[in-house]
């Protein structure tokens, strides 16, 4: 069983487009949407829910008794989550990281770590495969933890049913959601585009992928938008032993297809569709090998 995570560094380069079209072409597989705070895979895959579970996130410090305003907690908090402790103490849930230091130092024992529901995770059926996905309550924290949850779930199902491939739609950026999406996978596909912004972010996310010592594939979306920049990406891949599995031409039709909830690989005319079909041919041998 292999796992591949599709990431990009920069948002909007085409992760979900590529992932959803791969999901349509693959067999004996499960899809996981790890872009939990802006999940989009379900829009195209039209899932029917099988089960759901609450996601209770990491705890946050709360006041549960009478504060004597000694100020110790504010002194010790490294995240500036506590303020005003000499008059009316304020604990900022946005800054609190649930470390437990304030609980430890409080002489009156009136601070506690409390967990709350931060979202829901789902197992659903789609036309092509099982989809494991989640909804994070907007504004909630711990997306990395939620991603760990849904990945565990996907692996459980894969083990149970002897599934050969898990395709993971990753989050933009390089931080903890991306790290949780890459932990323990066999390979990653970085979808990038020939813009200065995307190239910069591609190189950063590639650094993260290297930490995991996993196989790196790249594809360049909208490659004909800027041939000089495309060349730069190609050179970088060559110099770093990264396999370039495809180049998708700029095509406004792709967005129109997506908006109509269609798969661009189903279009005979679309060159972008052809490129994605070819990319799948280039990568599927690796994905289904032992």
């Amino acid at each position, binding site marked *: 069983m292999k796992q591949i995570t599709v990431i*990009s560094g*920069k*948002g*909007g*380069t085409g992760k*979900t487009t590529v992932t959803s079209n791969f999901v349509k072409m693959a067999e004996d597989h499960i899809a996981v949407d790890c872009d939990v*705070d*802006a999940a*989009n895979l379900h*829009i195209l895959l039209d899932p029917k829910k099988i089960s759901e579970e609450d996601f209770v996130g990491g*705890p946050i410090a709360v006041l549960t008794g009478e504060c004597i305003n000694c100020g110790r907690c504010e002194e*010790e908090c*490294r*995240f*500036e989550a506590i303020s005003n402790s000499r008059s009316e103490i304020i604990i900022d849930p*946005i*800054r609190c*990281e*649930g*470390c*437990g*230091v304030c609980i*430890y*130092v409080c002489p009156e024992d009136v601070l506690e770590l409390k967990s709350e529901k931060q979202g829901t995770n789902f197992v659903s059926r789609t036309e092509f495969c099982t989809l494991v996905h989640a909804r*994070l309550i*907007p*504004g*909630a*924290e711990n*997306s*990395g933890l939620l991603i760990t949850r849904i990945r565990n779930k996907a692996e459980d199902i894969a083990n149970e049913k002897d599934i050969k491939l898990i395709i993971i739609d990753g*989050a*933009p*950026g*390089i*931080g*903890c*959601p991306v*790290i949780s999406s890459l932990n323990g996978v066999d390979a990653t596909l970085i979808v990038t*585009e*020939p*813009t*200065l*912004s995307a190239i*910069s*972010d591609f190189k*950063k*996310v590639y*650094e*993260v992928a290297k*930490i995991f010592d996993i196989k790196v594939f790249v594809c360049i979306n*909208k490659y004909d*938008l*800027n041939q000089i*920049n495309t060349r730069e990406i190609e050179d970088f891949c060559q110099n770093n032993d990264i396999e370039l599995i495809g180049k998708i031409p*700029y095509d*406004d039709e792709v*967005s129109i297809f*997506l*908006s109509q909830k269609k798969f661009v690989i189903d279009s005979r005319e679309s060159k972008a569709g052809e490129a994605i079909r070819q990319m799948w041919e280039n990568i599927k041998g690796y994905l289904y090998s032992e």
Partner: protein
Amino acid sequence: MIISVASGKGGTGKTTVACNMALSVGYCQFMDYDVEAPNSSFFLKPDIKHIHKVTIKQPYFLRGTGADFSECASFCNYNAVAVVGDDVIFFPELCHGCGGCLLVGPEGAVRENDVVVGEVRNGVASPSIDYYMGDLKPGSMRTISIQGDMDKSLNRDELVIIDCPPGTSCSMVFSVKDCDYCILVTEPTPYGLNDLKLSIEVLESMDKPFGVIINRDGIGDDEVEKFCKNSGIKILAMIPNKREIAEYYSRGDSLIEYDSSWKSRFEEIVKEIEKDIRK
């Protein structure tokens, strides 16, 4: 006045809007809070004057002293410390730098050192932009530490434009928490609409006034426009979808260079926002 430019979906045009707005008004503070993937420097082309490293304090353990570190291991909520037999194992990537080890561990046997998690660069961008950019070190998860550091430089007496990271969770919330107004940039597709609604939920829970800019108008449908009109949400601007605009973007050239009429349009948007906040 602090204006945050955010979006649920990535790649909708936050940086385009934030940078072009800054270039249009000319005199402001610009903060790139998308510290995992900062891109504003390509468009604002700042002359960087200062770079400072952002650090967190992480523990190190004096072994061979017979000290028992099991309290540190059981205290840590992030699995960054493990004690097996006589061996203490520390995992720096998992450590948040909370200082707990120093507090609960054996006296004198736990020390701390400063570990770099990224940096903040500051400089000037033409015409008169006080520019700040955060940059997270790949492999670190301390996005919040970098953003928190940048918070200290926020100058509320000026116009501040914050380029936010995509999404709706903690790093985005951190970037909008201090704003007086948030511009939500979206694309006119089901994905743009889906993620716009999530962003709106966040802003409404924080009581932040907001407006929408629709970018790449023409690539999808008119559902976003209809949604905004039906919900009484102001559409501040609609930027058309043009391959040429994408080509300019790919080179780091601004929207204003493509079409200079956007300068006055962005100036108008800022004035409109100022008026809306006063109401």
